[in-house]
């Protein structure tokens, strides 16, 4: 059993409070709803403030202009973002892209791109999924072929985070000698970008069609798949922390409502039917929170079991957030069934979060496979 500790340092507590304060001001429900209605779902004002606080470069190493923070710091920030359903390309640009470039070993690309991300000057994303699964395919159907010193890509990518706002895409594609990552600029001829009609409008996703589109190779051919897997695992630390934060908030909404809503002359929270629902939500939300913190600490400590722990935690946090968000609607009764009430926004986010980096069943299977190999 792991001996890593999940207790926050004073700096981490301060970081949490600072992010909470910023988001209370800059990402209230009205603002979330405004961004939901737009294709980009991106608030440049908020983005600038995140940059000024050093949050865009949070996990970027100091040599590339970032803060060089660890997984626990990232989890602390992501929890707060999840609580308020913050809109914007944080997960794609400030988390997944940096982790991918760092894992690719392409120092030149890191030196060129990461300082710009940290400074809030570049929105970038990673395009890895193809039709049918949100996990990366073992062999992408998107192909890469050499064209002299340069490369061209052909194929389709889907479930691409923030496709509509990104200025640069890191695309996985198959070459005869292996999988690789390629950079594609937004304006490149032969690239078409379309938004997907998504259930969760607080997190934008889109589709790319590449038709002999010029691209630059990142890292080397053959290492793309493992770099992507590493990046997805590191980024999942933020995703599960967002899920935990969202679950905590939805649980709190239900509990607060159960204290004030009166029927039959009593607060509905005095009825065991509602009280027990609230306690079940509390158990799931707290467990998700502990799981997210534990996994972050395990990644910081480089624990040997961290990926198996992540697999369990990612399945658990996905199910927990969906359960809490759904039960919150039920606890609210009629008002929870209205579009104007925010309860459904959390269920929408929860359902999308439970798919975006692979569904719970995929992560459970991964856990068993890892445990089998070790026993």
């Amino acid at each position, binding site marked *: 059993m792991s001996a890593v500790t999940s207790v926050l340092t004073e700096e981490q507590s301060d970081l949490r409070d600072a992010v909470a304060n910023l988001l209370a001001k800059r990402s209230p429900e009205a603002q979330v709803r405004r961004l939901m209605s737009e294709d980009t779902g991106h608030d440049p004002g908020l983005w600038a403030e995140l940059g000024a606080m050093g949050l865009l470069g949070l996990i970027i190493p100091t040599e590339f202009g970032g803060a060089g923070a660890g997984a626990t710091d990232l989890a602390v920030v992501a929890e707060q973002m999840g609580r308020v359903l913050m809109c914007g390309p944080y997960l794609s640009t400030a988390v997944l892209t940096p982790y991918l470039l760092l894992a690719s070993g392409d120092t030149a690309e890191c030196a060129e791109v990461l300082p710009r991300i940290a400074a809030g000057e570049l929105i970038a994303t990673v395009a890895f999924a193809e039709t049918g699964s949100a996990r990366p395919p073992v062999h992408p159907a998107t192909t890469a072929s050499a064209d002299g010193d340069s490369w061209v890509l052909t194929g389709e990518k889907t479930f691409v985070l923030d496709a509509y706002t990104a200025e640069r895409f890191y695309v996985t594609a198959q070459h005869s000698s292996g999988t690789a990552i390629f950079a594609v600029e937004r304006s490149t001829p032969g690239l078409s970008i379309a938004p997907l009609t998504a259930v969760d409008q607080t997190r934008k996703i889109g589709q790319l069609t590449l038709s002999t589109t010029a691209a630059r190779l990142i890292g080397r051919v053959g290492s793309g798949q493992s770099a992507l897997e590493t990046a997805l695992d590191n980024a999942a630390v933020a995703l599960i922390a967002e899920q935990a934060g969202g679950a905590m908030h939805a649980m709190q909404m239900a509990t607060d409502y159960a204290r004030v809503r009166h029927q039959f002359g009593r607060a509905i929270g005095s009825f065991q039917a509602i009280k027990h629902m609230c306690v079940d939500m509390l158990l799931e939300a707290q467990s998700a929170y*502990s799981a997210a913190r534990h996994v972050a600490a395990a990644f910081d400590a480089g624990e040997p079991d961290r990926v198996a*722990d992540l*697999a369990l935690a990612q399945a658990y946090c996905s199910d927990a957030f969906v359960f809490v968000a759904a039960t919150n609607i039920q606890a609210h009764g009629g008002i929870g069934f209205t579009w104007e009430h925010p309860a459904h926004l959390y269920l929408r986010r929860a359902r999308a979060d439970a798919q975006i980096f692979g569904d719970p069943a995929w992560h459970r299977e991964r856990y068993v496979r890892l445990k*089998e190999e070790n026993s």
Partner: protein
Amino acid sequence: MNDDDIRAEVRGWLAENYDPALDRAEWRRRVFEAGWTVPSWEPQWWGRGLTDTQSRIVAAEFAAVGAPGSGYDRADMMACTLHDLGTDEQKHRLIPPSIRGETRWCLLYSEPGAGSDLAGLRTRADRDGDDWIINGQKVWTSFAKTADYGLLVARTDWDVPKHKGISFFIFPMRQPGVEVRPIHQITGESEFNEVFITDARVPHANLVGEAGGGWGVLQLALAYERRLMGDLARTARSSRDLKPDADSLIGMARAAGVLADSSIRQEIARADAYAAVNRWNTQRAKTTTDRTEAATLMALGKIAMSRILHETARVQTGIVGSESMLTGAENPIGDAVTFRTLNAYFTSIGGGTDQIQRNIVGERILGLPKEPEPYRDSAFRDLPH
């Protein structure tokens, strides 16, 4: 003295004094004389005035060399309750034999008609000169056959609301009118007993606190019991039922030849996740400096443990399949799976049902309002039953 000094001192004392060959009573007397029996109590009351943490260190050092005799300030519910709320006379008379291991106690709280609603108890105590006469039935009593005393709650006033008419006694078990019958549990085991009490006597000198003040005394005794349960959960060694080994389901499925079954694999991961998040919750509760956070996580622990045990047993049933119909020594795997399935209720009912625990968490942790109590101000004798 700091913790390290204490550790060094007790270690030195044990090295000098402990001899496993020593007569048990003689050894207990030495421990008692040295103040190691109840180290956190005041020197005036047989202790050494140590902190709670230091007292645990002492107990751990005793355990490390296999020496009995320490830790009674956490494990002896009768002594702890009397230490806090007994009269000086009661303390001098009843505590030393108990913490030297010369007398034993049991708990006489629950009744067939008073389980979740313990304050609805109907065992009666009627004053008769210097004694009280006890009549009633108690249930779920461990060690009733070997106990010298029972911590007894009984009704002494039927004309006041239910919580206000209860008194707390140290009841002598070895007397006519006390009949102990083992309870045959659904697992086939018998850990608990029923205790039938007919015209038995307890001296007035053994009343703890005031007549009618028993509910308050009981709350203190229950708090000590919860603390002990927490200690035991932390140091549990026989982990078979409390902490299912994370790999055991995979091992069991492999042995049963069903590890390739994708639905079984999903179930295994689901059950393992319940156990894993519970470990992570416990770890967070231990490391956090936020008391509310720690209290929240600890309060959820019982509900979480019930789910782990029930779900693990359910997945094991799916793994062994038809063998779960069989029991007995010739079917050890089926037998174990059924035992775990049935024994899971030990946790989800014992010590307060999961449903009562959800009420407690909902009210104390989430601040949800209590159910209205229509009989709150009624005399107990007017309650329907």
